[in-house]
């Protein structure tokens, strides 16, 4: 068998501009746009060409009165949600400027279509479900709110989940089903589902981390969940039984020298056949970005619900990605043809774009 290829992380673009730390980035799922948000209360939009040349196209001076902590694009790529420390969630839509759009990056101004109030303290994260009909938000007030998206930027609150005992740091949706995961300062990860009477409830609590869980990412096929924590490890949890809704920790990845602030899991660029489970990028206070490749464990076809850990390999890493500054977020580009692009946001206020490629 040929030795596995070795990869490098090569810098593609450095996009400064924010006057304070950049907290989060999000790739538009349908259009060539990258958005970043910052403690300077703005959202910056960058457009990129197929040749991966990035240019700054607009800045949304959001009406938020405090830092914008997180971003999420809706499925359509036409709506953007922002989570702010002023405890509100902003929903932004672009005014059509009459030109034929679709894949274009040109458009009108970004306007606030709706502001979702309800949280009492700083919002930490926001996420759209895979179907685009649900929006989840979480906050330092220990609650997770689930909203249903209706036409005309109308949002209906479906539930307020108060299961965590501390600040909730991150919410992510399962890539195919309506399962929500949340990570908290109380060292646990909670999974939620709704029962037929439309009541959302927590069906599992994943313990194991010894400190705050900062970030979560589901694998593209939805069978694994990765979590990054203040205890400097990344844990991978596997769904061992879909019917019983049980998830178990199957892997603990060391290597970061400081807290892991963000994890992102994407399909990556598959090397051999269908056994690849994608690439996981992690980053944190040590300024390093590490990329792991996962593939199916041996003999998986026989025991569908075994708890064998996936095969994993560190394929690339880079230190001091933002110089001496902490890296707050990493995100893989979800669009076809660009799944080897990785964006990172750092305390230096810059957004950087990297390509993970064969050396």
């Amino acid at each position: 068998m040929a030795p596995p290829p070795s990869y490098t992380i090569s810098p593609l673009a450095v996009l400064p501009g924010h006057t304070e730390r950049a907290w989060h980035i999000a790739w538009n799922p349908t259009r060539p746009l990258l958005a970043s948000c910052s403690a300077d209360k703005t959202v910056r939009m960058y457009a990129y060409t197929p040749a991966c040349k990035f240019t700054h196209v607009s800045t949304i001076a959001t009406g938020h009165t405090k830092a914008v902590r997180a971003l999420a694009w809706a499925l359509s790529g036409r709506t953007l949600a922002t989570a702010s420390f002023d405890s509100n969630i902003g929903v932004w839509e672009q005014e059509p400027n009459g030109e034929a759009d679709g894949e274009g990056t040109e458009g009108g101004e970004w306007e606030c279509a709706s502001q979702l109030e309800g949280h009492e303290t700083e919002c930490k994260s926001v996420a759209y479900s895979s179907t685009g009909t649900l929006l989840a938000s979480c906050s330092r007030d220990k609650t997770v709110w689930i909203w249903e998206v209706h036409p005309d930027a109308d949002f209906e609150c479906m539930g307020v989940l108060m299961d965590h005992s501390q600040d909730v740091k991150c919410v992510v949706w399962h890539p195919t089903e309506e399962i929500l995961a949340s990570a908290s300062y109380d060292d646990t990860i909670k999974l939620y589902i709704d029962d037929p009477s439309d009541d959302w409830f927590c069906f599992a609590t994943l313990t194991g981390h010894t400190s705050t869980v900062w970030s979560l990412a589901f694998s593209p096929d939805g069978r694994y969940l990765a979590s990054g924590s203040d205890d400097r490890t990344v844990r991978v949890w596997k769904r061992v039984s879909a019917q019983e809704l049980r998830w178990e920790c199957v892997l603990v990845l060391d290597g970061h020298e400081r807290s892991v602030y963000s994890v992102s899991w994407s399909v990556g660029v598959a090397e051999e056949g269908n056994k690849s489970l994608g690439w996981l990028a992690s980053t944190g206070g040590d300024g390093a970005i590490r990329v792991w490749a996962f593939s199916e464990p041996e003999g998986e076809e026989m025991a569908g619900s075994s708890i064998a850990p996936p095969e994993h390999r560190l394929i690339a890493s880079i230190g001091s990605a933002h110089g001496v500054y902490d890296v707050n977020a990493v995100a893989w580009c979800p669009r076809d043809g660009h799944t080897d692009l990785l964006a990172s946001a750092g305390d230096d206020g810059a957004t950087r774009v990297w390509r993970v490629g064969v050396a």
Partner: protein
Amino acid sequence: MAGNIVSPSLSSHLILSSPSMAADFDLEALVDLEQTFYETGYDDGFAHGRIHGLIEGRALGRAKGFEMWEELGFYEGFAQMWLSIYEKQGRSDDRATSHTRRLLDLIAQFPRSNPSETDETDFPKLFRQIRSRYKVLCSTLGVRPSLRYSDRSQDRDEAADATLAGPDKPTSEKSVWKTEKGAGANAPRAVSGHSFDF
């Protein structure tokens, strides 16, 4: 000759007793003297403490029960008021009415008398569900929750600071709950507007 082979207790008797002290002198009791006094004192204290503990427990239970129901009563009244408003407006199948009904259902599940030993009601969980449902209801109605569950110690500190700041401050130190001032007409417009016309 008599007196050569003597039992130990008799010997102690013989050693210590003079002919005048013919009374029995039980030394066994003296061996554990401190222990005896300790035990007597302990039993006394235990009984005393039990009485006081019961009194204190009852007072605590009463206070806690009052607190719980103060909150639940507010939610119940709130829900009933909005339910009747909506019904009067003819909007009985609005999302809000279903939320109010569910909130009232949950509150009705809360026991109004001391639960028995075998009662499995999970109080904290029920309370969490009720609070969540109340927040969802507020959000659906477009009303900012004016009653927010907050940590009591935090309130006590706030009240203490208020009294220090000046006696002319119109803060009510007696209120346990943090209430939002200006939750009326000046409140920021929330998710959905609202009209009160009947």
